[in-house]
């Protein structure tokens, strides 16, 4: 079974939504694919208790209700060939053919290993935010938020709204870096308001700089953490630790399609031109996958990509000017919240790095290259396919070879059986 769309958009966060909408307004048929059941991506993730901001609701509604757009939820891309994608939903697998493709696959959280990070009760910062919105029980729970970046404040605010007792936020960046950042913030007035609103929601929650959670302790669940601040060390009893170190672009599908990637700090992003065109004909990319830029640049880039994917010539120039401004803010954020040496040194030789296969950092020491380490230790060979450990190892400055090998996600045999003899399935054996 195969379906064909003029434009297929992968991901229904802000970039994917505006890409689908912009393309559909040009009169073409659009398929909007997302692995989640509901649209919004991470930043506009559905909250079981609180409704989304009005602007987000309008944006989602305008796209999903557009007559030229087919909404394809709970659909994961597991394989790719030129011009078509192998997708799987809870019931079946099929090929989706496209005239043009827009990758709006967003980003995931950078989760770095430290002693105790595998304990139940330790989640990502964005991770806890996502779980809270899914109805994860937080009422009355003692929550500590730590790591780096503006997401910490958003995560803390969400946890609090869901009834958590947020004990503190620990930011690894130094106070001086934060002050420099704040002084330059006047150039983005909307961000000042956003930051102020978050601080109001977090009234009474201490926000510490230059502070790192060095260990989490407990038997089968988190009980206590150790925090190293600029002046002292302390222990804090808590039920949940939400710790994240910023975001990394989800480039796996782009890599499989052969799109050129470029460095973004220790991670990689998809290289695009001014029209969001990747190095592969008919493949465009927008939003976080092109580098962490936040919601505003995602909205703008999605619209550019959607127009460009239909071959439109007008309407793009003004969007390109707005994109430059939005992207400049992201650069400031990156400098301010750059991961410090202290964080990179947290993992000990006996700290697990690969959580799927229980491989310690020390076990990797004997291997000179990533491939050797992988073959000998199975590091990166579990179901997450290295999405957690390779991202972390890259941040720690260690080689982490991730191949663009199908399937992109663990898939059912029935799905792989759909792949042609020279396509997805045989690669599994190599």
């Amino acid at each position: 079974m195969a379906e064909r769309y003029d434009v297929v958009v992968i991901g229904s966060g802000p970039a994917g939504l505006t890409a689908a909408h912009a393309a559909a307004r040009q009169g073409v048929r659009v398929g909007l694919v997302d692995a989640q059941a509901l649209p919004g991506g991470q930043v506009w993730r559905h909250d079981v208790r609180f409704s989304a901001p009005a602007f987000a609701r309008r944006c989602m509604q305008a796209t999903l209700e557009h007559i030229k757009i087919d909404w394809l939820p709970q659909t994961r891309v597991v394989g790719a060939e030129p011009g078509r994608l192998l997708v799987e939903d809870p019931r079946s697998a099929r090929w989706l053919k496209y005239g043009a493709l827009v990758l709006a696959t967003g980003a995931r959280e950078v989760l770095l290993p430290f002693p105790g990070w595998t304990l139940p009760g330790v989640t990502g910062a964005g991770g806890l935010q996502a779980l809270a919105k899914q109805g994860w029980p937080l009422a009355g729970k003692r929550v500590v938020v730590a790591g780096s970046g503006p997401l910490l404040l958003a995560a803390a605010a969400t946890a609090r709204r869901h009834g958590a007792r947020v004990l503190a936020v620990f930011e690894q960046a130094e106070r001086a870096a934060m002050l420099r950042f704040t002084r330059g913030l006047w150039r983005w007035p909307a961000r000042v308001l956003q930051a102020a609103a978050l601080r109001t929601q977090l009234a009474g929650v201490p926000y510490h700089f230059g502070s790192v959670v060095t260990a989490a302790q407990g038997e089968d669940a988190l009980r206590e953490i150790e925090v190293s601040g600029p002046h002292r060390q302390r222990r804090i009893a808590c039920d949940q630790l939400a710790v994240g170190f910023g975001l990394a672009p989800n480039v796996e599908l782009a890599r499989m399609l052969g799109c050129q990637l470029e460095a973004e700090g220790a991670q990689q992003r998809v290289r695009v031109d001014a029209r969001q065109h990747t190095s592969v004909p008919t493949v465009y990319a927008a939003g976080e996958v092109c580098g962490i830029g936040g919601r505003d640049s995602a909205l703008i880039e999605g619209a550019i990509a959607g127009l460009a994917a239909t071959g439109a010539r007008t309407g793009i120039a003004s969007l390109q000017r707005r994109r430059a401004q939005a992207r400049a803010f992201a650069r400031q954020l990156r400098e301010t919240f750059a991961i410090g040496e202290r964080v990179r040194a947290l993992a000990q030789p006996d700290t697990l790095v690969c959580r799927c296969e229980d491989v310690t950092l020390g076990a990797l020491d004997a291997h000179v290259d990533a491939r050797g380490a992988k073959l000998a230790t199975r590091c990166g060979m579990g179901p997450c396919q290295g999405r957690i450990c390779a991202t972390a190892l890259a941040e720690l400055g260690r080689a982490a070879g991730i191949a663009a090998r199908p399937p992109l996600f663990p898939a059912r045999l029935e799905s792989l059986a759909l792949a042609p003899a020279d396509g997805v399935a045989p690669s599994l054996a190599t």
Partner: protein
Amino acid sequence: MSTCICVIVNGKPVEIVAGASVAAAVARAGSQFRRSRSGEARAALCGMGVCFECRVEIDGVPQQQACMLIARAGMQVRTDG
């Protein structure tokens, strides 16, 4: 007021707000999600379908990501935690 549904986690009924994920139901039941290869207890980490730490068996189908699925009334969830 939001309605609640009942999900069965490891044989135990759990009330959860309609629209909540299976991961939220397992957490509410107080169950672990899985044991790692070396026997460690694990639970949801990323909340967005990346890490696979929250995988459980749902209605007899193993290896389902609990954070990616909305709980349905009467769903039978099993964890190996």
